[in-house]
C-alpha cells in the first residue's frame, strides 16, 4: 500500500498541486485538504506536507496567521506520533511560527524566518542555489535517500527565508543535535560565503531545520520544482545540469527524477521504515 500524504491547503498557498504530483511521482498517494477540514478527518494520513505559497498573503508575518489555525493543533498531536510533517517555503514559515520547529520547548517559538538580507536589495528573490545534506541520512524524514555531504541544485523563491534566533547558543544546540538538515553551499559543497551562494543570510547557512526527532522539517527550498529533470536549468555547475543538457530530445529522460525527487522518496522510506 502506498503511504497517503495530506497536503494542507491554507488560504493563499499556491504550490499544493505540483507538490501532490511530486509526491505521486515518488510513489506516495496525495490528497489536497482544505485548512478548515474537520479535525477527525486528518488522523488517517501517514504524513503531512505544508506546501509553499503565501498563506494569508504573509500578512503580519509570513506563516504567522496560518500558524494559529485549528489544524495546527491537530498537526501538533500528529507530530507527537512520529508522522512526518514537512513544511516547504511558506509551510516552513508556518512550522516555525507554530513552534513545531525546532520543537524544543512545549511549542515555544524559538526561531524566526526573517526577511532575506545580504543581497543588496530587499524583497523577494527567486533563483537556483546549491544545498548540502548536513546531517546523517536517517536523522530526518527528508534525507533517508541521501548521503551526508550530497550536494543538490534546487530553487528557492522567498522574501523571508533567513533562519535566525535571539536565543544565545540555540544554533550550536541545533547543529550538535543534527537538526540543521540542509545548508546552502557552493556548487562543490563548500561553505557559502555570502550572496548569492547563501541567498538570504541564514544563520549557519541553514536551508532546512528539523525538530529533535527529525520527523518535522521546515525547508525553504522547493523540491517540487526540481523533481523532474526538465526543471533543472542548463548551465549550472552541476552534474544535474549536464545530465539535463545531454537529455535533449529524450522526453523520457527529461521527465525522470531531478535532484529534489529524493526528498519525497525519503519521506516514503521514512514512513515505510517507521511502520
Amino acid at each position: 500500500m502506498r503511504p497517503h500524504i495530506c497536503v494542507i491547503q491554507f488560504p493563499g498557498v499556491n504550490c499544493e498541486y505540483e507538490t501532490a504530483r511530486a509526491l505521486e511521482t515518488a510513489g506516495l498517494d496525495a490528497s489536497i485538504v482544505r485548512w478548515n477540514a474537520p479535525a477527525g478527518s486528518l488522523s488517517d494520513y501517514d504524513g503531512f506536507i505544508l506546501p509553499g505559497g503565501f498563506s494569508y498573503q504573509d500578512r503580519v508575518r509570513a506563516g504567522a496567521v496560518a500558524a494559529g489555525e485549528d489544524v495546527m493543533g491537530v498537526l501538533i498531536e500528529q507530530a507527537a506520533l512520529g508522522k512526518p510533517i514537512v513544511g516547504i517555503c511558506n509551510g516552513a514559515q508556518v512550522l516555525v511560527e507554530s513552534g513545531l520547529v525546532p520543537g524544543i520547548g512545549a511549542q515555544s517559538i524559538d526561531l524566526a524566518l526573517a526577511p532575506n538580507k545580504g543581497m543588496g536589495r530587499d524583497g523577494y528573490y527567486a533563483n537556483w542555489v546549491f544545498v548540502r545534506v548536513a546531517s546523517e541520512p536517517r536523522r530526518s524524514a527528508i534525507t533517508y535517500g541521501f548521503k551526508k555531504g550530497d550536494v543538490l541544485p534546487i530553487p528557492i523563491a522567498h522574501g523571508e527565508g533567513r533562519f535566525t534566533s535571539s536565543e544565545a547558543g540555540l544554533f550550536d544546540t541545533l547543529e550538535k543535535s543534527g537538526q540543521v538538515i540542509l545548508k546552502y553551499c557552493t556548487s562543490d559543497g563548500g561553505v557559502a560565503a555570502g550572496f548569492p551562494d547563501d541567498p538570504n543570510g541564514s544563520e549557519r547557512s541553514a536551508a532546512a531545520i528539523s525538530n529533535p526527532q527529525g520527523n518535522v522539517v521546515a525547508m525553504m527550498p522547493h523540491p517540487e520544482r526540481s523533481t523532474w529533470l526538465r526543471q533543472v536549468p542548463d548551465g549550472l555547475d552541476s552534474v544535474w545540469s549536464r545530465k539535463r543538457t545531454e537529455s535533449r530530445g529524450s522526453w523520457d529522460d527529461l521527465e525522470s527524477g531531478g535532484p529534489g525527487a529524493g526528498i519525497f522518496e525519503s519521506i516514503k522510506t521514512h514512513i515505510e521504515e517507521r511502520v
Partner: protein
Amino acid sequence: MTIQVLVKLAAIDPWSFTVLDTLKRKFGCDEVTHVERVKCWELEFRPEAAERAAGITAGLLRDTVLLANPNRDRWVIRGFPGEGVPAGFWERSGDAAEAYIVKVTDKEDLAGQSLARILTSRLGISDIEVVSFSTIWVIEMKGEGRRSRDLAGEIAVARAWRKGFLANPHCQDAEVYPADEYFAAEVNRA
C-alpha cells in the same frame, strides 16, 4: 532630532481585517473590537540640521513616493514641539473602552536601511543619520483596565503556539503603549 511620519491607507486595509479576524477567532480575544495599521517612519536628523528637518521631510512627501503616496495614503508629520496627532487621523471608536498600540520594528530594519541608502546616494540628502521603519498596530478593546493592558502585552509578542502574535521576538522588537498617550506624546521628549 527625530521626525516621525505616520502613514495609513486611505482605503479599507485588508491586513487589519485579517489581524482582527485572527485575534478573535484563533486567539480567543473577544475583547478586541477594532484593529488599525499605521506605518511609521522615523527620520533622525543630525542636530545641526534641525532647522532644515521640516523642509526636507515636506519635500520628500511632496516630490517622492518613498514615505507615502498621496494617491493611496494619508499621513501626519510629528516631531516638533507641541505636535500631536490631529483629530481625524486616529480616534478611538465609540464601542471601545481602551486602545493600545503595539509598535513592531524588525531587528534588521531593512526598509529603514534601504530608504537611508536612497536618501544619501540617490537624493544626496546628508542631514539624516538614521531612518527606521515600524508597523504600528492600534488595538481597540471593549474591556477595561489591567486586563486590557495585559492582553495587549500578550498579543504583542509570539512566544508559543497561539500565545502572542504581532512580533516574532527572534527578529522583531515590540513596544506597547496606551494609544492616547502615545499619539499625544511629543516625539522628541527631553
